[in-house]
């Protein structure tokens, strides 16, 4: 990633040390001229609610050396003119999948039966990687410094991530990552800080349902306890006992039982959160909940001294414009059959009200006095800043939003001493923005991670690029060729797979796949933005009708009397 002096030149900084040695060895890494930085005359938010105007931040050797309005700039500092810039502590992501490529076909995701065809697995003796019981895996072993997610996170302002592996219901242990460096040891700030769990079912083998996950958790927890007790008994007096052999799964779970190793649960809704708390009660776990976009329904369980801590998801339902102006009427009763449109409008208004209530979750938690951190799980990284703005507009004070991104998450992760504020002695993680972070059109200009500078050019839209030739743009926007990931809802259950279209818009062919099966599509045709195709399935014909918009589509899959909603997105090339 671009960094150091080359970017400084772009900013027009005055202090450029000539580097002849580096110039002579173009293949060698260009040494950084100095690990000392001065961001001068910026608006520095030292901590949430604590702002210094026209202040200077000195960074040296990865630490914050000084902050203030009257600090001496060291002679060797690389200076950044901070006039009109805003400096915050680097953000912390309380839970994320960062530094590991997302598996193509995630383990699990199915329900109940559905093992790949031809496969015969003893349902009661399935490999653990199939069941998702892999608590011994370490994110610190899996992390890849060149994984694109690291830069994406950094660019969004995160310097620290509590990262956990992809996988099933117990996919491994989390590591605290410091998002810089080319080598694993640079990245890993602390290995094995947590056990991670999610309500991710397995495919074809247990656990195939949430209740299966609950049973599997209790089983592994109680067996881990039994083994630990037998082992200590054996060590004291082995007579008449069998030695308990080592099993990494139980070894990994054991520290979680007494609460010494926290268990982070990703819970996508309150029902999952309730389940996590049942396990907390039954196994004595120290639970941190993450996700919970609907946490408003859960505030009573999050209050009190013994309450679990919460990392609220930064994801929100997509924004949808509404021009109807209809407000939801809770007690609406249809006046015979005369007002079906009125009922429909009311139902739609309720969905809108629910979307708004999700935007207000953070504010509601704040009002209830609940301190929460944040997680990027359940969120699109590109939407994080916008979503935070929506939360602020829904009543979350900016200071509270910033605290969630910094101090509160640092507190939950147990790294308040090192991260979360712009104070002397802290590790130099900083976010520098062009406007106040929560303001419209605010952009990240620099990110510092442990004193390493990353620079981001403000993005400017090419003049006349959009809308200059509307007709041409519309025509070229519809492009069917590519690989699409689709989701279809069958009886309330989401199913997914891929479709591949090739050829040209005028002459298309394609295939549809789910699991291991691929079926050719027939009669593939694109008319305007509407793509139609059929495929045979066991004597019946399934008809797809899809409306393409850029890299997404929505439509239906019709078979017999059923019309199933289907949507998809195109994979980037």
């Amino acid at each position, binding site marked *: 990633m671009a960094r150091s002096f080359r970017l400084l030149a772009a900013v027009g900084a005055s202090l450029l040390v000539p580097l002849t040695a580096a110039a002579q060895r173009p293949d060698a890494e260009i040494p950084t001229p100095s690990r000392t930085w001065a961001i001068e005359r910026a608006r520095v938010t030292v901590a949430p609610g604590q702002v210094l105007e026209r202040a200077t931040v000195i960074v040296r050797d990865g630490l914050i050396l000084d902050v203030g309005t009257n600090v001496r700039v060291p002679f060797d500092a690389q200076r950044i003119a901070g006039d009109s810039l805003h400096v915050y502590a680097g953000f912390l992501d309380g839970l994320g999948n960062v530094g590991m490529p997302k598996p193509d076909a995630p383990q699990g995701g199915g*329900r*109940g*039966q*559905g*093992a790949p065809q031809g496969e*015969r697995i003893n*349902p009661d003796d399935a490999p653990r990687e199939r069941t998702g019981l892999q608590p011994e895996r370490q994110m610190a072993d899996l992390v890849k410094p060149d994984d694109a997610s690291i830069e994406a996170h950094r660019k969004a302002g995160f310097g620290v991530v509590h990262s956990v592996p992809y996988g099933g219901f117990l996919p491994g242990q989390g590591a605290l990552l410091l998002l810089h460096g080319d080598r694993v040891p640079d990245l890993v700030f602390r290995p094995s800080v947590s056990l991670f769990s999610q309500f991710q079912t*397995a495919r074809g083998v*247990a*656990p*195939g*349902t*949430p*209740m*299966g996950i*609950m*049973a599997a958790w*209790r089983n592994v927890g*109680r067996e881990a*306890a*039994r083994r630990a*007790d*037998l082992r200590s008994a054996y060590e004291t007096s082995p007579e008449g006992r069998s030695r308990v052999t080592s099993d990494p799964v139980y070894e990994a779970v054991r520290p979680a039982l*007494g609460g010494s190793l926290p268990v982070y649960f990703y819970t996508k809704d309150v*029902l999952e959160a*309730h389940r996590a708390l*049942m396990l907390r*009660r*039954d*196994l004595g776990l120290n639970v941190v909940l993450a996700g919970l976009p*609907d946490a408003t*329904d859960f505030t009573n*369980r999050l209050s009190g001294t013994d309450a679990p801590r919460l990392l609220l998801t930064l994801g929100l*339902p997509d924004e949808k414009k509404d021009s109807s102006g209809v407000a939801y009427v*809770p007690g*609406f009763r*249809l006046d015979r059959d005369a007002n079906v449109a009125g009922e*429909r409008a009311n*139902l739609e208004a*309720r*969905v809108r009200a*629910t979307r708004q209530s999700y935007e207000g979750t953070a504010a509601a938690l704040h009002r209830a006095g609940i301190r929460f951190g944040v997680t990027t799980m359940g969120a699109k990284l590109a939407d994080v800043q916008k979503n935070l703005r929506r939360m602020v507009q829904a009543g979350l004070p900016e200071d509270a939003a910033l605290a969630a991104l910094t101090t509160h998450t640092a507190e939950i992760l147990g790294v308040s001493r090192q991260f979360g504020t712009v104070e002397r002695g802290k590790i130099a993680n900083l976010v520098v923005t062009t406007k106040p972070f929560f303001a419209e059109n605010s952009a990240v200009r620099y990110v510092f991670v442990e004193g390493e500078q990353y620079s981001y050019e403000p993005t400017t839209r090419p003049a006349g690029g959009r809308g200059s030739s509307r007709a041409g743009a519309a025509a070229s926007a519809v492009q069917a060729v590519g690989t699409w990931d689709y989701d279809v809802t*069958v009886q309330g*259950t989401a*199913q997914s797979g891929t479709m591949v279209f090739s050829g040209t818009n005028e002459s298309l062919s394609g295939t*549809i796949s*789910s*699991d291991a099966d691929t*079926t050719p599509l027939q009669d593939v045709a694109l008319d305007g933005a509407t793509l139609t195709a059929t*495929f045979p*399935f*066991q*004597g*019946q014909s*399934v008809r797809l009708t899809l409306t393409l918009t850029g890299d997404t589509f929505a439509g239906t*899959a019709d*078979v*017999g009397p*059923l019309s*199933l909603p289907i949507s998809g997105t195109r994979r980037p090339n």
Partner: protein
Amino acid sequence: MRLPALMIASARFLLLAGLSSAALVPVAEAQRRGATPARPASARPVSVQASLPPERASDDALPRARTGSVLVQGATVLTVSHGTLANTDVLVQDGRIARIGTGLSAPAGVPVVNASGLYLMPGIIDAHSHIATSSVNEATSPVTAEVTQEDVIDPFDVSIYRALAGGVTVSHVMHGSANVIGGQNETIKHRWGERDPEALKMAGAPRTIKFALGENPTRVHGRGNGIVPATRMGVEQVIRNAFEQALRYKAQNAAAARGAGDPAPYNLRLQTLADILDGKVLIHCHSYRADEIYMLTRVLRDYGVHRIVFQHVNEGFKVAPELAAFGNDAPTVAGTGDGVTNGFAMASVFADWWAYKMEVYYSTAYNAAVLTRNGVVTSINSDSNELNRHLYHEAAKTQRYGGLTDDEALALITLNPARQLGIDGRVGSIDVGKDGDLALFRGHPLSVYAVPLGTWVDGIRRFDADRDGDDARLSVRPDERVDTATLHVHDDHRCMEGVDLAELAAEATEGR
């Protein structure tokens, strides 16, 4: 191909419907949910339990169920337990029926309902339901005793409200019928409006578990996965093998408790099966044919299990005397409440639904009456989030087909299912001291003109026909699509939910 397979399967859902089931078994002693089950584990000086909190924390940790008070005045009271009382008042205080009589006055602050000309009956109890749950079938093994509906109660399911609108106050939320030994069930009260799953659970209700015989498990596991059971013989053997394993598990832990050897590796499945053998968990078994019903009674006798509730039991009328006699030779068990039987086989049936697949080709609308007249405690259940709204009509059918009395017919949906769930000491009739679970009707509930007007749970009015908004849902998803009306025929049967229906659809195609 998974997606289209499910589409096809949905289209053919009629073929598949009715696979549900459940089984109720009254438990020997009141095995309170709040109590720590007596586990045979704790070994010698090594106490495995020492490291862990009890398997189930006390009920104090749960939100206390809210209760209310009400005085219903001047109703025709159908007590079910002691006949019909004309022009009678019923006072519920703090969730319990406090007084039944005439000229009762309401204590300060207690709302009064003028029920003159109306009918008051006990809240209806549905002994076989799949509402209010997030997942029905853990269809990954022929035996899944380790899972429990208790973990997946969904208080936001609008089916709860709709059941209340049909006078139903208690549902037995059952695991599905994909497995020979399925998961444990949960008895809930319809405390609609509560948003915490714990608040719906009926504290103190005995533990029950689902078994399933016949075509469902043989199709899912035998034909679907190529493992035992592929036949009814296999189904029997799965049960026997499971019980044998549980006996060994018990034996090893009992030996360890005496100081001989170490406790067995912890196994929640075997532990649950051991609890069944110890009479702590009541079996509710999905069944249709007389031969398989009789088979299970013999298996249970072999393992000393003397209590069972058969679900569906469409050919129950063929073995009614055998069911009535089952368990009579069992040793006396203290604390059973009625003290009448040492053991029992009960039946929970449909009023007049059959022929939805081969194994249930043969039945009769007289089934409930035949079973009742033979002395089998019988209930009528819904297994459906549509049928549960008119269980009173289902009960009334037994008067047309079998000539049951009003009390007998009403008992099919109140006191009898309460007995099958082991909660008849608390609910199922209008008696002083029982829970204030009541349903108020305009018209006699066994009349086709019956209209439910109000439903109380623990004295709190949870349904009021006068305040019945069109959209009663507690919450909606932010990405919910508002669809124009679509009629889904029989989509409401969830007993095979979670099973990938691809194999079933494929099979149906092959069979043509």
